[in-house]
């Protein structure tokens, strides 16, 4: 029986052609000299039965990828009557090299140029007759997809096969490929001597764990439970650490810096303490959370669970143009946006990373929660409080979903979702600590200047001109509030609240403190005062705005660092401000129209 090998570069439509010729008769089989199975089919060619073998697609006959070795081993172990070399007409200028390499082996060859239809559309014309004459072998253009040119190719192949008396000589081909096989042997020898590769995944512990963690029904609840526990861990441990750090920083301020600056002019004292020092304190406040977050993240990532989380959540996330890994970061954003945005680095695809970074700042982070708890306590009854808070969480998810859906075409992810699922491993403590330390260093290096400058700017806006009370209507911040009155009045935000929103650009943690300065009172007195000044519709509108607009300077600085793009940073700011205004407007005007 005559034997024909089908050869070509990857993605030339080789399999399509093979299927067209072989029909349903294809089967898998093993061949001398190679360890992988190859597809072959018995076909009727010019009145005789011939065997057609589909060899793996390769770029280079002399390369050392697994497929390239398979092709060489096949040719040096199995005599063939004909090589059908399939190339892509539209990429012939790159692919002709493979034909010339094969031609040197001295085997009878038919060159088949596929995708003739595409080449025609691209305006590529190939003079097959002259090319055939120069190469001294038949050249036929076909379109395997539509079957065009196929009968002619088979006819030419049949002619050669039936005329041909001798097959290729594997021994002489082996001689021609001697250099390659020497390198192969040398490679194998070196690897065997100096490299240890485990043949299996150790034991089946990973399989056993996966049976539970990736269970059809248990997998998702277990994932949420695990995320909840990690979340609790970060913030129950991180909270006291942050408070402790704030206490130490306060102590340094009151017992060291304030006495030291006692005799200096008020403006200098203000600039250094309320500007620079507060800026440093703002930066420092993030350090414990970032360390803890990356401690937990590196455990999740290095243990192999992150890929599993992606597996579990992908069905839902794919609809939003994101993938399962993005979901873990989005969840973490509900604790703190800054490490969550830094964590998007695990995604390789830039568009998807940017989309995730655009979505994360809309999560109801722990700092926003402080503002809401204060406002809800001031303006809502205990009966309504849980409902209000729940609706804010719901709104957070809704705006995230809306943003992802609206922007998924802008940030279209071209990268296929294919991930290796590694076996479960115990990360070493060294790995974990190193990661946490590097991330903090990165954050301090990149974000601290930006944040400190921002804090100084807000201090300037809320303390100057110096002849009016700090944070009052007379300050620059107050004037900005008045200036934006026409925009802020329709969403029920008065000048005092507008100043608080300007403070909120720095960090949501200081919004309540800012309100205390603005109204000149604290605690219960402040709550009572606010209840007389604004009603619940205004409060809700203010909370919606606080929920959606830019979370804090640190987040902005992190977005800028991670995206390496000021344009993207501005897009994030403008989009969140715009969305915040629209949502607050719809709510405020809707509630007023309904008579509330």
């Amino acid at each position: 029986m005559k034997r024909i090998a089908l050869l070509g570069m990857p993605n030339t439509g080789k399999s399509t052609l093979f299927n067209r010729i072989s029909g349903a008769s294809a089967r898998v089989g093993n061949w001398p000299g190679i360890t992988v199975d190859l597809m072959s089919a018995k076909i009727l060619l010019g009145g005789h039965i011939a065997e057609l073998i589909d060899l793996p697609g390769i770029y280079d006959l002399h390369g050392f990828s697994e497929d390239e070795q398979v092709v060489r081993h096949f040719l040096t172990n199995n005599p063939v009557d004909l090589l059908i070399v399939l190339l892509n007409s539209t990429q012939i200028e790159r692919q002709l090299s493979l034909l010339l390499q094969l031609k040197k082996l001295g085997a009878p060859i038919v060159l088949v140029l596929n995708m003739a239809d595409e080449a025609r559309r691209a305006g590529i014309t190939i003079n097959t007759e002259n090319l055939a004459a120069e190469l001294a072998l038949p050249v036929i253009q076909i379109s395997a997809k539509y079957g065009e040119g196929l009968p002619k190719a088979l006819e030419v192949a049949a002619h050669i096969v039936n005329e041909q008396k001798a097959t290729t000589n594997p021994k002489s081909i082996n001689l021609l490929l001697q250099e390659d096989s020497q390198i192969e042997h040398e490679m194998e020898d070196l690897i065997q001597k100096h490299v240890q590769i485990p043949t299996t995944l150790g034991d089946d512990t990973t399989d056993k764990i996966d049976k539970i963690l990736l269970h059809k029904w248990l997998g998702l609840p277990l994932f949420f439970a695990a995320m909840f526990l990690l979340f609790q861990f970060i913030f129950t441990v991180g909270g006291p650490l942050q408070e402790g750090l704030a206490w130490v920083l306060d102590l340094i301020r009151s017992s060291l810096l304030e006495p030291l600056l006692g005799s200096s002019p008020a403006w200098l004292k203000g600039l250094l303490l309320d500007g620079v020092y507060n800026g440093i304190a703002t930066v420092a406040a993030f350090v414990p959370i970032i360390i803890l977050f990356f401690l937990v993240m590196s455990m999740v990532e290095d243990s192999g669970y992150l890929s599993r989380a992606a597996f579990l959540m992908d069905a839902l996330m794919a609809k939003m143009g994101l993938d399962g890994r993005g979901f873990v970061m989005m969840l973490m954003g509900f604790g703190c946006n800054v490490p969550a945005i830094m964590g998007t680095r695990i995604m390789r695809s830039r568009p998807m990373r940017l989309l995730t970074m655009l979505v994360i700042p809309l999560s109801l982070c722990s700092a926003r929660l402080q503002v809401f708890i204060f406002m809800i306590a001031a303006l809502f009854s205990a009966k309504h409080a849980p409902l209000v808070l729940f609706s804010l969480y719901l709104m957070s998810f809704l705006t995230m979903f809306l943003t992802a859906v609206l922007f998924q075409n802008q940030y279209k992810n071209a990268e296929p979702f294919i991930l290796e699922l590694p076996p479960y491993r115990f990360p070493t403590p060294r790995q974990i600590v190193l990661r946490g330390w590097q991330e903090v260093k990165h954050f301090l290096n990149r974000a601290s200047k930006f944040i400190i400058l921002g804090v100084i700017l807000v201090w300037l806006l809320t303390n100057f001109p110096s002849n009016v009370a700090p944070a009052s209507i007379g300050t620059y911040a107050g004037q900005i509030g008045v200036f934006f009155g026409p925009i802020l009045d329709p969403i029920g935000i008065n000048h005092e609240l507008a100043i608080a929103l300007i403070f909120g650009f720095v960090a949501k943690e200081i919004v309540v403190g800012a309100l205390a300065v603005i109204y000149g009172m604290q605690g219960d007195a402040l709550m009572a005062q606010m209840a007389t000044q604004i009603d619940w519709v205004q409060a809700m509108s203010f909370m919606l705005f606080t929920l959606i607009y830019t979370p804090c300077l640190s987040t902005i600085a992190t977005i800028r660092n991670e995206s390496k793009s000021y344009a993207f940073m501005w897009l994030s700011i403008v989009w969140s401000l715009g969305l915040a205004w629209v949502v607050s407007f719809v709510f405020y005007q809707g509630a007023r129209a309904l008579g509330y």
Partner: protein
Amino acid sequence: MQPLSQLETGQQAVISAIEADESLFHRLSALGFRVGKTLSIMRRASFNGPLQVRLGTTDVILRCNEASRIQIHPI
């Protein structure tokens, strides 16, 4: 012959063709997807989510969309 996305969970199959564009093809071959290799589906995620495919000693997860580019022969 059928696409990998339609292979039953637990059933073994041999890859007979990979019909993918260049970037996907490279990604797949880097993870060990090659014509002639044996694979099986370990499990599918709920809600029509990704497939977990075992190829020799490597486990890979991929979406149905990408799995439909891989033609297989059940054995």
